[in-house]
């Protein structure tokens, strides 16, 4: 595998009026990887992805694709050659496939008709169109529904059709914006397994999600985005190592005067990083849980709080995500 990135996102800044949604975002995407962009709602994920494919024009920065890689049949070069997607829109649009948060196809066309229609927009020859359609119908498990109107499909099938539409021209890079949002766990698994299948066929995948725990299994690298800035980019394992220095203490007490407990244990100089009230539980983060536990039990005793349940664990990626993004 050629290690030079196939896509270079350079200092992207995108504004909507006075609101700067992307603030100098820079990323490199490598061939064949599944790259996750994780951030809270409104952090700029979708804007980033849409700017990436040239749907939105950035105020500053550029997105450059590796010209020699994508147009390898024509250009032979030892050194990687990059070109701006904004200057070569037609070519760049053939490179990307995009499946947005909401299914984007014609509900009054059948599954096959949708695929053929979008394939024709990519100027696919008839043979390639037929072949790609059949392959995708099989891959997405939509063969039986190929003559069904898209509007009559279930949520999972819609999502699969949308991804199929994004893949009809066999793009080198597939971009998935929140591919599993609003889906039940079973469908989510199905979609993720599809994503893996597509990736195994050699397609580079960039996906956005606000569920860090969900993407950690599949992504080779993850970028955390917060308020339009990339907070960190690393593999899931590296992120865990980097941010999971603290452990999590979950307690449940009665009568549960968690606010007072929080104030009591979060004294200056204590080893408590953070305290969160989550439902009927109090979550305490610390790199020295045994010391904190000692103080906590003492406080509970003083406050006449009855301890119902207590757990000590390392935090999951979701918790890490919340901590990283400050949520």
């Amino acid at each position, binding site marked *: 595998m050629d290690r030079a990135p196939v896509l270079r996102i350079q200092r992207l800044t995108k504004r909507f009026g006075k609101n700067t949604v992307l603030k100098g975002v820079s990323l490199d995407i490598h061939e064949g990887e599944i790259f996750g962009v994780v951030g809270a709602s409104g952090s700029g994920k979708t804007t980033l992805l849409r700017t990436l494919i040239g749907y939105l024009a950035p105020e500053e920065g550029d997105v450059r694709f590796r010209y020699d890689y994508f147009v390898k049949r024509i250009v032979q070069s030892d050194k990687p050659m990059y070109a701006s997607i904004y200057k070569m829109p037609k070519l760049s649009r053939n490179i990307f496939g*995009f499946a947005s948060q909401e299914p*984007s196809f014609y509900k009054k066309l059948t599954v096959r008709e949708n695929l053929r229609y979008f394939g024709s927009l990519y100027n696919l020859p008839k043979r390639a169109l037929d072949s790609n359609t059949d392959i995708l119908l099989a891959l997405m498990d939509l063969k039986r529904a190929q003559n069904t109107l898209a509007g009559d499909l279930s949520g999972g099938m819609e999502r699969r059709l949308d991804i199929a539409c994004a893949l009809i021209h066999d793009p080198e890079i597939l971009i998935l914006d929140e591919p599993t949002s609003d889906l039940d766990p079973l469908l989510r698994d199905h979609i993720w397994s599809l994503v893996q299948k597509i990736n195994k066929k050699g397609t580079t995948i960039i996906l956005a999600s606000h569920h860090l725990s969900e993407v950690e299994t599949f992504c080779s690298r993850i970028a955390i985005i917060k*308020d339009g800035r990339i907070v960190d980019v690393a593999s899931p394992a590296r992120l865990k190592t980097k941010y999971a220095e603290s452990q999590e203490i979950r307690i449940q007490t009665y009568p549960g005067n968690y606010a007072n407990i929080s104030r009591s244990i979060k004294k200056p100089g204590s080893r408590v990083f953070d305290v969160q009230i989550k439902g009927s539980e109090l979550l305490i983060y610390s790199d020295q849980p045994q010391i904190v536990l000692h103080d906590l039990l003492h406080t509970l005793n003083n406050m006449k709080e009855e301890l119902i349940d207590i757990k000590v664990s390392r935090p999951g990626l979701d918790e890490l995500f919340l901590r990283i993004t400050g949520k």
Partner: protein
Amino acid sequence: MKLISIIKKNFKLLLRAKASAFTVLVGPLLIVLLVGLAFSGKTSYELSIGYYAPTYNNLTDDFIEGLEQSYYYIQEFKNEQSCVKKIEEGIIHTCIIFPKDFEIRNEQRNELRFLVDYSRMNLVYKVIESVSDILEIESKELSYSLTQVLLSKINITVHDLDEDIVFVSDLNPRLNLLMADLQKANTNTEAMRFDLEEVSVASLNTRFSALNKTITEIQNKGLELINESMDYIEIIKDDAGWDENETAELEEDFNELKNETLELYNATPEKIQSVVSAITKLSSSLDELESDLNKSKQLKEDTMEKLASAKDNLSSLQTSLSDLKNALEKSRNNLKSISITRAETIVSPVNTKIEPVISETSKLTFTFPFLLVLVIMFVALLLSSTIIIFEKNSKAFFRSFITPTRPEFFVLTTFLTSFIVIILQTIIILGLANYYLQVPLFKNALSTVLVLLATTTFFIVLGMAVGYLFSTQEGAIMTSIVLGAVFMFLSNLVVPLESLAPAFSKIIKYNPYVISSELLRKSLLFKIETSETWMLILILLGAALIILLLILLFQGVMRKKRIRQPLDMLENMLLHPEKAAAKIPTKEGVSRAGNLKLLLKKVSDMTQAEFEENVNLRQNKVTEWAKSMGKKKLASKIKRTLSKNEIMKLLVEEIKKEEKKERKTKKKHED
């Protein structure tokens, strides 16, 4: 409360969908304004009248002058065909064809021919009426003039007759005098006595006759006696021996002669006496006669005098009668000099005949071009705008957009889709019209096809422009209908353009519906060449091209501004609070929900679990936050709900209110 709330919401949504609101609220007003302006301040029609006169004379000139004195545009033509051509082209509205040798004569029937275009159904009768009015005035004037001549002659004759009557009246006493003279002569004549006593004269005659006879008889008897005596003498002589018988007979004869002579003798004095008496009587009668004759002489003189007077009178009368005859002859000649004597000619010296320039008589045939263009216009506007809106609002729009397909290509495909649909519809309509209405499709096939193509192209492009300008289907449909209605109202279909205000009329001539329908009307109903329509077809196509370029320009601009941060962000929040809230910028340096926007963002960012933790039956922290900001009313409203969306909507509404207040305060400060 709920009612008001829903109505309020409806108004907000309506007003915030600016384009739709503009169409719904301003569109009808615009129609009223335009139509009002177009039809205001004018009661007459801007008509153009053409005429052709094979020969010119005073009468023709009078009529032409009459036409020129009207407020219509009058144009002269060198022949009938060129005049008809201009009607077909719609340049003039009617053609008046004067008859050859247009003169008012007894034996001549003058017929002015009007050539009109019945396919201009709502104008043709006005044209006929208007031109008839003008010509009727002229005809009336002519009739008046003829009657005037007649009356003048009659007046002269009456005047002459009056004089004659005076003359005749003058004759009467003269005739009376004459009569009196003659009467007198008559009386005188009657008084003249020329008769003698009838008897006296007759008896005198008779007596003289008798006397004469008697004398004659005496003479005869004497003679006879003498003769017999002679005879006897002879006999005596001869025979000398008389016997007795012979002597007796001689004696008897002498006795008899003696008696008779005695009788005669006796009778003669009586008879003489009678003659004397008769002569006496005659003398007396002659005296009387003389007297009478004297008297008669007197009377004769008198009569002669009267007769001389009567002669004079009669001579004078003869002269007078000769004068009277002359006068009557003059009157007769005067009356004879009236050339126009036919009552029909005097009453209606000029007749008009209305002739259509085309033979078709069905009103539907005349209406057909207008209806066809109307159908094309509405279908094109609605169909193309709807296709655009469908595409724009389709979830597939994004996917189509990111394919390597130029936007112009989508514009072209939308155009072609609409074009195919409308052309197919048009073919079907034309086929049916050709079959059922006998609309002549092939009279100017090329011209008709070009007009239909240009019309379809223009209205599709216009509909596409509407589709690109509006974001909602209802807005696009409303605008399309409003546009179509404006085009239709300001066209010949409803009211003739000639009746519009002149300034508007000039502009409205270029109303695409007017151009299209007029072109199609001419192409279908008249023999019009492509060369005569190409300019207007080019105008339509040129306008379509300009609109198309504007669409592409607009698309380019919109592409650059795509997914811009909407200025009315808070308005969007009402519809999509969750999405909108995510776009609210955080104020740096503010660590807590110190203002409503941050509070909204906080609420929006909460997961459902977090929200339920903060807002449940036991507690409502958002209420507390609102209270802490001094928003008691808002807190009270928030307290009533456990729905995240509801709370966010309440917050958005409150933000709007706050912003409004802030703007007012700012304005006050600035003032």
